[in-house]
């Protein structure tokens, strides 16, 4: 554990390498992460990386995790040894948290990090003296390059074998009677007695934070309130005095261990960069350029990889069709599974690019500048500068984005962010956008270097963003504020991205996307194939005979196509689609798209796979080696004889998917984060209405 930006995650990655149990969803560290490391040849330990905090008093939900674990020795994650990473270039503030953790009675080790940065700022730190002053082991490390890990492991081993805990507290609340103006000694010993606590500081935490402690029951909380009443304990006042008291002692300690030679107002190169990146004009211009670059990368740079994979899948499908014996099993494999999975695999390059760029922004420290840049604007919409992170990571996936809202302290701002984040176009929409844009927007270059398709793509993302802001504004008028909003935030210095971190993030996100989406898609593809290949009774045969007699005078190939299409219409899936058709007809969709809409309700990315499966079954193209795009382009609207995917239909679908909340995982996450069904249902309702209404308008206007 440690302060944000002190190098916790670097150390964690150095210790555990790829032996991490990452959560299901990639992106920002919002929850604890765990992994294993080898202390020596025989001892394996489990390492937990907690979110960064500045003190033991949480200001938002993500910070709560740290206190929950440290204040409860019965917690399954309660550490045997707490390694506190301390940023040497900002010793005072880092020691505040360190001294609090130490006072809670956990065996601690200080991992003194960023000594190189301190040295650059002409700070010299005497680690031996620091260790003696605080009475704890101090190990010098460089988490970025992995220096000092062996010494750290030795120290951990010693602390586990024979824990040394400082005898006296750094700040003992029981001794502060003079400070508090009432009998602190009596109050603390009453609490200790009632809860069998051995530690004065832990007792103080019971007093101040008992409302947030999930391990305390209601009667216990009431009892604590009674004690507070009896002693007239003012928690806010005492907390302020504690912080001042700690800093006073820390100041004394730091004076003896640090030689500070730096001039008071030297401007670091980080600050000089800020002059440009936070400039009234350049600041926004640079941010806009960065966003534009991201979309160009996703669309233009990833395209060669996408085309390669697309062709590969089509080739595989064609080859299997030729080589394997003609049987329902072969059809299931090619038309069902490979067509469906191919629809997902194709988008790996784009998702990889997206996560690569987003994690670069986070790593470099630019993301927090963006928060400062946007706070004033976001506030107009009832959001917070911190909402920028969920909104930007929402472009990758709404699930980690919604979890990232935990860093927003005010419930109202957090709730509004949660409600509008799914309007940001996530990577699952990318497959749909890509394929439909490629179908109806010509591949042209405008202004010399911008790809027209890339611009339309960016337009869709902007549409999502604008909708998110408008919706936020509407919610701001409806939802009342419960507590005050806070935007006090450290701006970390700019750093070169650590490529291994970026690599791990991209790898995690791609694999989890493939696994999460892949499993659903394989399952749905199989079910869909069955539903689309079989019908009630002999309905399929009847449809075949009807088609054969009706179109007997057409060339053989045409007849086969009509037969396949007629059979699909008569199948179970076709019947479902037909039932739905009247509802979606005003949007310009037919029953085939209807099937895809229903199946993509679980997860949007299924749409493309479903369309691929349906059109593979619904055509007699035996080779089956055309790509999904070619299949869509070849689809004819039986009523007009024109291509099915006119610009009106394609844009209507695009707009529908920009707004529709078609993702079970997001609904589940909102349920978990808001602790109830009320908000996810409101969200589902407003987004569905928005999607249907806008798609209707688009189709009717463009038709």
């Amino acid at each position, binding site marked *: 554990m440690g302060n944000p930006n002190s190098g916790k995650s670097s150390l964690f990655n150095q210790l555990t390498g790829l032996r991490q149990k990452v959560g299901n969803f990639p992106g920002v560290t919002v929850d604890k992460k765990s992994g294993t490391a080898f202390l020596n040849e025989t001892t394996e330990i489990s390492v937990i990386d907690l979110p960064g905090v500045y003190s033991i008093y949480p200001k938002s939900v993500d910070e709560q995790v740290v206190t929950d674990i440290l204040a409860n020795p019965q917690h399954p994650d309660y550490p045997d040894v707490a390694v506190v990473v301390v940023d040497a270039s900002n010793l005072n503030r880092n020691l505040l948290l360190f001294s609090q953790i130490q006072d809670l009675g956990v065996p601690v080790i200080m991992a003194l990090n960023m000594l190189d940065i301190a040295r650059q700022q002409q700070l010299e730190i005497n680690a031996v003296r620091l260790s003696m002053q605080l009475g704890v082991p101090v190990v010098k490390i460089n988490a970025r390059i992995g220096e000092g890990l062996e010494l750290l492991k030795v120290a951990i081993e010693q602390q586990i074998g024979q824990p040394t805990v400082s005898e006296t507290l750094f700040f003992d609340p029981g001794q502060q009677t003079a400070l508090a103006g009432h009998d602190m000694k009596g109050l603390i010993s009453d609490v200790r007695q009632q809860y069998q606590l051995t530690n004065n500081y832990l007792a103080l935490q019971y007093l101040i934070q008992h409302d947030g402690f999930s391990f305390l029951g209601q009667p216990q909380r009431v009892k604590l309130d009674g004690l507070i009443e009896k002693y007239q304990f003012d928690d*806010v006042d005492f907390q302020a005095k504690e912080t001042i008291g700690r800093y006073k002692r820390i100041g004394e300690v730091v004076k003896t261990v640090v030689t500070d030679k730096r001039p008071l107002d030297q401007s670091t190169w980080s600050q000089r960069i800020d002059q440009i990146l936070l400039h009234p004009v350049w600041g926004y211009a640079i941010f806009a350029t960065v966003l534009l670059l991201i979309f160009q990368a996703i669309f233009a740079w990833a395209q060669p990889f996408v085309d390669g994979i697309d062709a590969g899948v089509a080739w595989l499908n064609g080859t299997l069709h030729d080589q394997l014996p003609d049987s329902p099993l072969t059809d299931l494999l090619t038309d069902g599974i490979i067509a469906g999975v191919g629809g997902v695999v194709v988008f790996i390059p784009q998702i990889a690019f997206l996560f690569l760029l987003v994690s670069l922004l986070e790593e470099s420290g630019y993301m927090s500048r963006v928060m400062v840049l946007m706070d004033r604007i976001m506030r107009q919409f009832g959001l917070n500068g911190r909402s920028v992170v969920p909104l930007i990571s929402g472009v990758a996936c709404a699930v980690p984005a919604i979890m990232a809202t935990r860093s927003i302290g005010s419930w109202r701002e957090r709730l509004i962010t949660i409600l509008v984040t799914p309007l940001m176009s996530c990577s699952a929409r990318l497959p749909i956008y890509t394929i439909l844009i490629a179908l109806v927007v010509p591949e042209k270059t405008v202004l010399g270097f911008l790809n027209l398709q890339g611009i339309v793509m960016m337009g869709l993302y902007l549409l999502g963003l604008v909708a998110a802001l408008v919706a936020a504004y509407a919610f701001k008028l409806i939802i009342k504020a419960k507590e005050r909003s806070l935007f*006090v935030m450290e701006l970390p210095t700019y750093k070169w991205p650590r490529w291994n971190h970026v690599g791990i993030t991209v790898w995690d996100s791609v694999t989890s996307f493939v696994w999460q989406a892949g499993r659903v898609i394989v399952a749905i593809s199989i079910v869909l194939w069955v539903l689309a290949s079989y019908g009630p009774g002999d309905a399929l045969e009847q449809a075949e005979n009807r088609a054969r007699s009706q179109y007997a005078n057409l060339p053989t190939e045409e007849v086969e196509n009509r037969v396949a299409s007629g059979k699909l219409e008569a199948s179970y899936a076709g019947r479902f689609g037909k039932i739905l058709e009247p509802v979606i007809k005003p949007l310009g969709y037919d029953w085939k798209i209807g099937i895809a809409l229903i199946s993509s309700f679980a997860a949007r990315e299924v749409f493309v796979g479903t369309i691929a499966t349906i059109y593979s079954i619904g055509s007699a193209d035996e080779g089956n080696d055309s790509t999904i795009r070619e299949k869509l382009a070849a689809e004819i609207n039986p009523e007009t004889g024109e291509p099915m995917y006119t610009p009106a239909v394609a844009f209507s679908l695009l707009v529908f998917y920009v707004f529709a909340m078609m993702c079970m995982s997001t609904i589940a996450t909102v349920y978990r984060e808001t602790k109830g069904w009320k908000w996810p249902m409101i969200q589902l309702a407003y987004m569905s209405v928005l999607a249907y209404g806008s798609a209707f308008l688009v189709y009717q206007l463009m038709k």
Partner: protein
Amino acid sequence: MPHRKIQKRSVADLKVGEKAVIESFSDQWMSLKLLEMGCLPGTEVCLHCKAPLGDPICLNVSGYCLSMRKSEAATILIEQ
């Protein structure tokens, strides 16, 4: 008390590049967070830059950069 608040200059009144020493806080709840972040009475701060719309602002406090809204900065009163 409310009169003193108006008379007192706060960090929000600083110009870019101007330095000041923190004296006290006008908002106790806000002071908890600010204290934790190292804004202690007696500490010297320097307004390092403002966001494009003049709000939030960035302060240099004990060797690092801290950003906050103008309304929050207004609760940090400074010595004259």
